[in-house]
């Protein structure tokens, strides 16, 4: 596990089930390629909203933790 200083890894969503459902739902009528594109757009939008490089770096690290 990676210790974070900037990224909030404690629960923050008020209705987690709703969000999770919306996320999966976003892809419902999309082809594999469109899904990839939608995910990429989502990441770019959220990253810009967060706007803090240190926070994003922690998220990038956690995202690949244990994958290689």
């Amino acid at each position, binding site marked *: 596990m990676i210790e974070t200083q900037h990224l909030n890894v404690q629960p923050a969503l008020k209705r987690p089930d709703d969000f999770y459902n919306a996320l999966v739902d976003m892809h419902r009528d999309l082809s594999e390629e469109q899904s*990839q*594109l939608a995910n*990429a*757009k989502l*990441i*770019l*939008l959220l990253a*810009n909203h967060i706007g803090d490089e240190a926070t994003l770096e922690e998220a990038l690290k956690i995202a690949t933790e244990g994958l290689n």
Partner: protein
Amino acid sequence: MLQSHQNPVYEFVHSSDQDAPTPVHHPVIIVGAGPVGMAAGLDAAKQGIAALILDDNNTVSIGSRAVCYAKRALEVLDRLGCGQRMVDKGITWNLGKVFFRDDQVYSFNLLPEADHERPAFINLQQYYLEEYMVDQINQQETVELRWKSRVTQVEEKANHVQIQVETPEGEYTLTCDYLLVGDGANSGIRKMMGLESSGQVFQDRFLIADVVMETDFPPERWFWFDPPFHKGGSTLLHRQADNVWRIDFQLGWDADPEEEKKPENVIPRLKAMLGEETEFELEWTSVYTFQCRRMEKFRHGRLLFIGDAAHQVSPFGARGANSGIQDTDNLLWKVKLVLDGKAPDTLLDSYDEERVYAADENLLNSTRSTDFITPKSPVSNTFRNATLLLAEEYPFARTLVNSGRLSLPSVYHSSSLNTADEDEFDSNMVPGTPSTDAPVNESDWFLRVIGNNRFNGLFFAEQDGTISEANRNLLTTLANSDDIAINILIVGLTADQTLPNGMVRLADNKGLLTERFDGKPGTFYLFRPDQHIAARWRALDQQKIAAALNRATGRS
């Protein structure tokens, strides 16, 4: 193919050096008369060093290679005497447009801050730059350019370098104190010396077509990602002088270069792009691949590598010739001080330090642009397309679109020649920065004034337009030193005040010089001969200035 430009042919001329019984010695010999070798020669002339340039060819660049010259390169070329011709002949542009598939995604304006002499960029064929440099060299007494003279051997001796030169009339030997190696990206001398330039080769090919056409397209930079007329690739359109337009098509790695550059294959691509009805003539085509790489060290004893021989970047972001010209801007004043015995030979190590740093910055920028333009994996392609799709409507994404970043000069932030700030300034002119420009006097420019190949000192007088007796004496001492005299410029001195001996009054009528340097009364800036800031203070202190000068010349 049509020729809007005839390459001049420069004759081989017999030199008395060929007949000398023992090898003739030159303080500085430069290998290669590309833009960077010639910039070195012209800079040597400005510094007062006798220099010899040797080139194996007899003409300027065949076909236009470099197109874009950035503000800083133009400022250096001004100092070397070629800037005005470049700007007069070149195309000044500010507006860039980016397209993705069928749509314009956004446009950007490089709109430089007002009140600088030179624009952000001009476009001009490389052969013009080189011709202007040759003309300028021919006007100099202390620099000589010998055509059809190929350097075939280089040997470093204890206190000089010996080289072998091959000419149509046979071989001869020369010696020099320093050999400046500007023999281009495939540097034969680099290989001869067993040195390497390493980095990344991009698995992609680009087709360049220079076409002549009369059109009412505006002088803007248009960049297409995946356009309808060239699916899957990118395309760039840029205007050069004489109605010549540069068009660049990304072809992919599997393209056959010999096939692709045949007019019968190029013309249909151009028609698809420009429209059937647009009339144009092909002037030059070539297919190129590119690399981003550099030598580990730019200095090897008495050999100093400059330009593409030392570092090579992809063309995106226009950093090849632009950064090469900054190499020699950095190097020649140092060579002068060392040859004159005013600085130790180790000052030349700072060339390596500062320009390797700059090369890394350029390599990073050009690699990133290349990665965006030609994504290397499906996922990076997805992110690239996602960015472009968002950029059309959402401003944040525009900052992520990278079709080549403006080539800006490096700030040598951590150079060992800098004296760190100890005072507070509300100005980004920190030590290591190339000086900003500002209008001064009657229609003159600050960078012209300090383009005198010397150390300069800029002093801001007291609020009431005077200088104290002590400061007057101190500045007089600096200006008249028989070690390294500093050319002193004084801003804000009222007309009734006499000017101390050996100093120059500067009128800052618009107040911009004072504003850009945060020139509160008593402020003093020390500039190196390449116009980079060495140190600055809020008050004059002779010992501190002497120490900063020693530092900036590698004496401490």
